[in-house]
Structures are given as structure tokens and as C-alpha cells.
């Protein structure tokens, strides 16, 4: 472990830029902490925190100058690796056929993500499995992902809606980063403790002023991690959960939640693991030039499963059930892990305040089929 003084944060950003990275980090915009390209540490949300509850998000001033004294906001890193709108290619009419122009993608952006939380590292790892596994790796995703450098930031306090400890995804970043920072503010000290997670991270650190952490500094940061891990926030009991949900497709709780759910799809838009997409064409007025686009889609719309002969999910009940059972049941069989990392975004950004941990607990508590607890 090493110590970075505050000013070294700017040196880190400069070192990333010198290597050709577009540095993306949290920044305050429109009354929220969102992710955007930055060039200076002054653009970080210094002195801000967020207040999160079911269907509530606001930002507030802190009593200190912490740079990362907040949890996760409405954006997730998937907006960069899996863009919400992506042009796949263009085509121009030529006689009875067409000529495809696939070259318009441009050179891939090299992103450096600064401030990735542990739950988000796990979310990126899950999307890696979705997009890169199987016979058809998603080349658009891989191209961006291969060129991405990750500077994680460890959470030292639990947010208002998150539950990473339950999902075994945090709060301390264990893997999946090039560098990991922990911001330490205590006893007149304000600095970052940095851990390296890859040769790329080690090489980068060489260009950033740092010094080895002494025993007292190591003890201090460990105590911050331990405190964060022991804070009681929300919990989601995952014991035998896939089986319980599988046994309860017809549970009345799905009817109950359907009365509250607006099927607005906010949860799927803010979710860092949701990966559904659609493909659609657009043309210019002449019809000579067309483009094929991929954009985010959501299992909450009626169009999602509509076919000429009907629709397999006609109700909000079945659509909400699909979302939750995919995350907490079927994802495990498909990708080896839960599709939920416990970031809490879906709870915060649900206009009806629906809480996935509460819904899962309600079904567990009144399971229609006896299952081992």
C-alpha cells in the first residue's frame, strides 16, 4: 500500500491523459452526482454527499472536503462500455441492393474510469460474462472494455439504499481494478491510500508521486474498511433464493407489487447489470441512406415480447416478475452469479419506492412451497 497526497490526484489524472485516456469520473451535474469526462480534480464532487432512500435522491454539502464522500448515483459505467445508443453501421441504396459502410465507428475511445465502487467492479465483471462469453462475443463491448483502465474507490460508508455486503460484492474492492484508492480523512489527515491491482496500475503509479504507507496508516485504512463492512444497511437474504423464487412464480406478492409498479423501466435504466437491447433502423427522408442502431431496451415495455401472434408478458405482474427472477434466480444458472450487485440504484430511482430487498423478503417469508431456509 502507498500514500497519495491530495495533489497527487491531479498528477494521476494527468498521467492518464498523457497515456491517451479519456478520464471519466463522478461530477456534480443537474443536482446529482453523475459520470462525465473530466480533466481536473476540481471537477470531482469535493465536499458533496448524496442522500438516498426509496424513491429519493438528493445531494447535500458535507462538513469536510471529501472527494469521494458519496455512494452511487443514477449513472453506471455501462453507459460507456455498453452505450445507450450505438450505431452498428450505415447503408446506402445501390440499385436493388445496398452498400454497407461499417467503417464509421471511428477509433475506439480509451476510457479511464476514476471512482469505480466495489459493487460496480462486480457489475462490470457480470457484463463481461454476458457480452464476452459464448460463441458470439460482442465486439463493440470488447473493443471498449479492452481499452479501459479502472481506478476503484473503496466505500467507507454504506449508502441509504445499497446492500453490497448481502450480495458479497463489497464494500471493499477485491479484484477487477488497476488501482484502488481509499480516501482517508481523520485526525488532521486527508490523503488517499492506494493499492495496485495490475501491471498497468503499477506502471501508472510510477508517474504519480507516492510513498509507502507506514504501519499506522495501514492500520488506519483497515479500520475504515472494517467499519464500512460492519455498518448495517439494507440486507437481502440470498440463502436458497433462486429455488424460492423458482417455486413462487404464482405468489400473490407479484400481484401486490404490480399494483405499485408503474412499469416505467427506471430500474432497468439505472441498473449496472441490465443488458437488454433492441436493434432499429432509421433513414433519411429520401430513403437512400439508412442506419442500423442498437439501443438499450427494457423488459418492462409491452413491445419487448410482442410477436405477431400475441405477447407472453401482458401484465406488469409478469414483467416485474421477469426482472426480479432474472436477477435473483435465472442469472445464477446462466452466468454463475446473481445478476444483482446490491448497488441500490433501483430502489432509489423507483418513483414508487419499490425495494427489491423487501419484495424478495416478502416472498421468502410466505413461500408457497416449503423450501429449506
Amino acid at each position, binding site marked *: 500500500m502507498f500514500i497519495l497526497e491530495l495533489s497527487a490526484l491531479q498528477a494521476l489524472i494527468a498521467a492518464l491523459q498523457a497515456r491517451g485516456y479519456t478520464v471519466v469520473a463522478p461530477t456534480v451535474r443537474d443536482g446529482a452526482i453523475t459520470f462525465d469526462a473530466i480533466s481536473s480534480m476540481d471537477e470531482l464532487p469535493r465536499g458533496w454527499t448524496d442522500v438516498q432512500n426509496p424513491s429519493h435522491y438528493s445531494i447535500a454539502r458535507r462538513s469536510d472536503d471529501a472527494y469521494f464522500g458519496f455512494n452511487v448515483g443514477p449513472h453506471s459505467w455501462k453507459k460507456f462500455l455498453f452505450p445507450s445508443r450505438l450505431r*452498428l*453501421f450505415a*447503408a446506402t*441504396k445501390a440499385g*436493388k*441492393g*445496398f452498400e*454497407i459502410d*461499417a467503417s464509421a465507428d471511428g477509433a475506439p475511445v480509451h476510457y479511464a474510469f476514476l471512482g469505480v465502487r466495489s459493487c460496480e467492479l462486480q457489475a462490470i465483471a457480470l457484463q463481461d460474462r*454476458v*457480452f464476452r462469453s*459464448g*460463441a*458470439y*462475443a*460482442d*465486439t*463493440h463491448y470488447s473493443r471498449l472494455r479492452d481499452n479501459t483502465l479502472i481506478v476503484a474507490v473503496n466505500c467507507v460508508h454504506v449508502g441509504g439504499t445499497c446492500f453490497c455486503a448481502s450480495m458479497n460484492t463489497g464494500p471493499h474492492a477485491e479484484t477487477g481494478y488497476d488501482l484502488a484508492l481509499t480516501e482517508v480523512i481523520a485526525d488532521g489527515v486527508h490523503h488517499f491510500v492506494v493499492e495496485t491491482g495490475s501491471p498497468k496500475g503499477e506502471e501508472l503509479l510510477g508517474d504519480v508521486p507516492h510513498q509507502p504507507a507506514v504501519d499506522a496508516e495501514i492500520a488506519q485504512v483497515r479500520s475504515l474498511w472494517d467499519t464500512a463492512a460492519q455498518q448495517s444497511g439494507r440486507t437481502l437474504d440470498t440463502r436458497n433464493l433462486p429455488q424460492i423464487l423458482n417455486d413462487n*412464480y404464482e405468489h400473490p406478492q407479484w400481484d401486490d407489487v404490480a399494483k405499485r409498479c408503474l412499469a416505467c423501466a427506471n430500474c432497468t435504466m439505472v441498473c449496472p447489470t*441490465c*443488458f*437488454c*437491447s*433492441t*436493434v*432499429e*433502423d*432509421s*433513414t433519411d427522408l429520401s*430513403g437512400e441512406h*439508412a442506419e*442500423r442502431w*442498437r439501443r438499450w*431496451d427494457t*423488459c418492462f415495455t409491452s413491445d*419487448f*415480447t*410482442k*410477436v*405477431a*401472434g*400475441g405477447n*407472453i*408478458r401482458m401484465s406488469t405482474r*409478469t414483467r416485474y416478475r*421477469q426482472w426480479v*427472477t*432474472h436477477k435473483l434466480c*435465472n442469472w445464477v*444458472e*446462466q452466468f454463475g452469479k446473481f445478476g444483482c450487485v446490491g448497488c441500490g440504484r433501483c430502489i432509489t430511482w423507483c418513483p414508487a419506492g419499490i425495494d427489491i430487498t423487501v419484495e424478495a423478503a416478502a416472498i421468502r417469508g410466505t413461500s408457497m412451497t416449503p423450501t429449506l431456509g
Partner: protein
Amino acid sequence: MRSANTYMPYPMRIDAIIDEAPGVRTFTLKFMNNADAEEFSFKAGQFGEYSLFGEGEATFCIASSPTRQGYIECTFRQAGRVTSALARQEVGSVLGFRGPYGNIFPLEEWYGRNILFVAGGIALPPLRSVIWNVLDLRDRFKDVTVLYGARSVADLVYKHELKEWGTRSDMRLVTTVDPGGETAEWQGKVGFVPTVLETLAPGPENTVALVCGPPVMIKYTFPVLEQLGFTADQIYTTLENRMKCGVGKCGRCNVGPVYVCKDGPVFSYRELQSLPAEY
């Protein structure tokens, strides 16, 4: 993988068009580029994404048999934006095609067995690929029976091929139309497919049943087969859930633990029984 871009289609030219039934057409498609034709191969049961630029993509099975090389055929009913635009195309028009995707009917495992096809309406195309595949390798299979029904005589697809199948001595074809759908000249049966299947009463011994049709036909056909002694492992169908990417990445066709596009579209009835009833 053929392309750096999963979504990149092959250009294919419409070589022939057949009007099958009201609103239903078959295209014969040939590759524009020889290199594409040479690397392309598929097996019965697989599907593709057919597209027109500016309109979008639509999912259909490959309705021709893999034993017939150099072209593919697709049969579609005009329903939405893409299929309506496809229906306006002429011989010589160029479409985009990507595929083949999905799993297959395990035909090689069925060598030496009786094959029973049960199809309804516009759901004959996926089975037609298998039927011609089986007929082209006829000596590897025992009895071949096709039961095909539609709402009316006009709604039957592949009418020219039904004539041929009806006269072949190495297979049995039974056609039926729903009550009221018959014409004065109609020589086939009148009745719903499950009812006709019941009277036909094919034996389950050493037999595999392939069933494709509208949901209501499937719903009433599976119990008839079970009554006749077929086990759930002897019954196969294909699912037609909404798809976009075709390769298990867009999430749309997810049902329970499976993605219909990559884990299907071919499923045994046994496999279906472990899925939520969302198909």
C-alpha cells in the same frame, strides 16, 4: 465467427417468390458473394435475421433443407413493419441475412426411427426444413408421417409440395382444415389437428413427434400425444419468442433459465415442462 461485427448481414438476392396463402410468401435467397456461400452452412431447426435497410430485422426459421445447398428459403406472413416491407420486394431485390442461429433438431440421433410431423397453419415452415431433410435421407428413417392442418384450404402453405408428398409412396400425408374451412373440392379431412391426430392414433414405439403450430394447437396436441403413449422426451417443438440479436446478447427471448435464440429454438416437451409458461 465470420465478422468482427455480430450484426453485419450477408447480402442475399431474392431468386424466386412464391405466394403460398393470403399474406404468406416464400422467398428463395441466394448469396451475392461466393465467399459467403462457401462458408455458410446450417442444420434443420436453425433460424436467421432477415432485414431491409431502413425497416429493420425480422426473425424467421430457415424453411429449406440443409440437404439442398446453394440457397435458403424463408416463408413469412405479412404482419408488422418489416414483414410488410419484405412483402413489397421483387425478384432481384437484395436483403440482409444473418445466421444461422440457434440449436438444431437432433436428426442424427433419430436414424432408424419413425418420424411424425404435426403442424398447423404458418408453423409448417420450420418442419418443412426437417421433412425435406428426412426425405432426402429417406433410407435412414423408418415410417414418415405428416399431419398438417390450417384454418381453411386457402391458408395451407406449400400447396405444390403437399401434392407431391400426397403422392409419394414412402411417406404418409394427412391434411385437414378447421370445420367451415373446407371447399367443395376438398379431399382432405375436416377437423382440428389434435382431433385428427387422435383418430390417426400413431403408435409411440420407436417414434419421435415434431409439433409446430399456433399455441392453441400445441396446447391440445401435447395431451393427445401423451394419451397415445408418447413420453415428453419423444416430443419436440420450436419456440418463436420475440428476438432481436439472435445470439444470446439482447436478453429479449429470455424465458426462465434459457435464451430461446441460443438454447433453442428447438426444445423437447420435457425441457418445456421445466420452463415458466412464457412461450
